[in-house]
């Protein structure tokens, strides 16, 4: 698995406070003209809505098992996508499964975004030995291939959803810090930051008013690339039995429990993976679209 997103080459732009509204307007207009991005956004919206409104939309109870209706094939009457190894309606479980799977894709990245940006700002702005200590410590975590680090932390902490959230957050923090730190270091040396410092502004207000705005953009772009990685990794942890526990519905876990069915009814065993694949692909394509739409600034 690849969890390293290509680092975003970034040259700090001058703060465009006045032009901001028209800038985002331009990005959006550019995006609306990109058919792939629009299709991805629609697919993603559909998946999110299906997950969000699962309790009202789903045709059955996600936990109601039935011994006589096990592993029904796709297209069975009453079970559009068949049933799983315990006779639970698969369409229902796929809809419910999106709730945890999407959450596990977004939450670790969000946590890492907040923590990583803060650490990166501190390291980049203060520089000197603080920077040295922080960055060299993170280098050690960088020396771990990310899947290995995620599995090792989740494995050490033990199975469970909160533990895999912690594991994934810890995997992403060093990566986010690196991006935030490099941008902060570049911005810190700009003339207007010097000017602010000379006019007596404190470190905190300089970071808040002058540095943060420049750092958030590239870090955000980097973080959007991590969401699909996070989702695949989180489902992978569940697939190994280290994430969400049964009988919860989650795509990776469903893939795990349905694995034994590949000799009985192979195609339903592949369905949860189709959801992971479709979601992460839609997300990546949308993120690519946003990235190239944002390029109009340069």
């Amino acid at each position: 698995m690849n969890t390293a997103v290509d680092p975003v080459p970034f040259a700090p732009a001058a703060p465009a406070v006045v032009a901001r509204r028209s800038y985002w307007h331009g990005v959006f207009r550019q995006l609306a003209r990109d058919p792939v991005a629009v299709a991805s956004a629609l697919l993603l919206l559909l998946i999110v809505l299906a997950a969000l409104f699962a309790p009202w939309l789903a045709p059955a109870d996600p936990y109601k098992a039935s011994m006589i209706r096990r592993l029904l094939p796709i297209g069975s009457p009453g079970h559009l996508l068949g049933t799983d190894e315990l006779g639970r309606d698969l369409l229902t479980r796929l809809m419910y499964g999106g709730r945890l799977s999407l959450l596990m894709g977004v939450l670790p990245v969000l946590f890492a975004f907040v923590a990583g940006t803060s650490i990166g700002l501190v390291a980049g702005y203060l520089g000197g030995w603080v920077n040295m200590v922080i960055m060299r410590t993170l280098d050690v975590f960088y020396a771990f291939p990310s899947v290995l680090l995620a599995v090792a932390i989740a494995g050490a902490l033990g199975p469970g959803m909160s533990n895999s959230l912690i594991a994934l957050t810890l995997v992403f923090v060093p990566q986010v810090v690196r991006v935030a730190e490099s941008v902060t270091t570049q911005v810190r040396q700009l003339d207007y930051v010097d000017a602010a410092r000379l006019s007596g502004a404190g470190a905190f207000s300089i970071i808040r008013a002058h540095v943060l705005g420049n750092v958030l953009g590239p870090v955000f772009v980097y973080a959007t690339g991590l969401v699909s990685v996070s989702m695949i990794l989180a489902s992978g942890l569940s697939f190994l039995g280290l994430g969400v526990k049964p009988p919860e519905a989650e795509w990776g876990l469903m893939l795990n429990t349905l694995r034994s069915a590949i000799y009985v009814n192979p195609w339903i065993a592949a369905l949860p993976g189709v959801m992971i694949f479709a979601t992460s692909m839609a997300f990546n394509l949308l993120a690519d679209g946003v990235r190239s739409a944002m390029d109009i600034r340069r």
Partner: protein
Amino acid sequence: MFAYFFKRLLYTLPIALGVTLVSFTLVYLAPGDPLNAIAPADAPADVIEALKATYGLDRPMPVRYALWLGRALHGDLGASIATGRSVTSEVLSAAGNTLLLAAVAAFVGVGVGCALGALAGYRAGSWIDRVASAISVVGVSVPHYWLGLVLTIVFSVKLGWLPAMGAGAGGSAEWAWDAEHLRYLVLPAATLCVIPMGIITRTVRALVADAVNQEFVVALRARGLSSAEVFRHVARNAAPTVLAVTGLQVGYLMGGSILVETVFAWPGTGFLLNTAIFQRDIPLLQGIILVLCLFFVALNLLVDLAQPLLDPRIRRA
């Protein structure tokens, strides 16, 4: 140039030391007694004490780390709690299998990725460019454990062409280069190679597309060089970055093959790691994490040392 080599080597040492510290302490994050794996819940106190002394668990953590590190430097990673066998030999034999899988996957993935990326970069906007970008998006988006499952369904369950699990008939873990064993390698390697293929295609495409528009390429063309000669210059420009990305990818494959190994019951480090986690076999866990990470660190070092051979700018710096 020697200064560069020396600096890079020196920089690796503290990282490697940090890796040993993290590998050692990581497994103690969890609450719970490591002795649970071998001692029954109602074991008498003196038996527990004796076991603790045997495994050195009665000493304070820093002492344990120092002892562990000292022995690890001599190639001794202790004994597995679950099986009593030497961790070093268990990990090394599993690492051999993983390396085999990762190397084949990397070879195929990087080869196809380079060819496809170069073609796409040369003909930006053509159909081959669209195929290449589709492949690279699929490569980074596909959950590879699921891809492994789908390949198993198609080629083992439906068609019956290839074995679904293991690395040899009868569950043997001994590898040999013959047709029988190669059949076991096809599906896991095909699954795993998709990951580097996507990234490498994307990287090479971007590099080549960027290079062909640069002035020096226009100048080379204007001087009447054949397209093969021009390509040699473009390739030389892309080589350092491709090498760096390839190095990272091989490392990720070594550490990241755990899911694929689980799907195919491939007897490698990922599979071993999985068993060690569920048996809470602490020495084995520490050993696997350490060996895989040190491999990754060494690989990164090797890539960095090879960079100046490809990129004269680093040599002069």
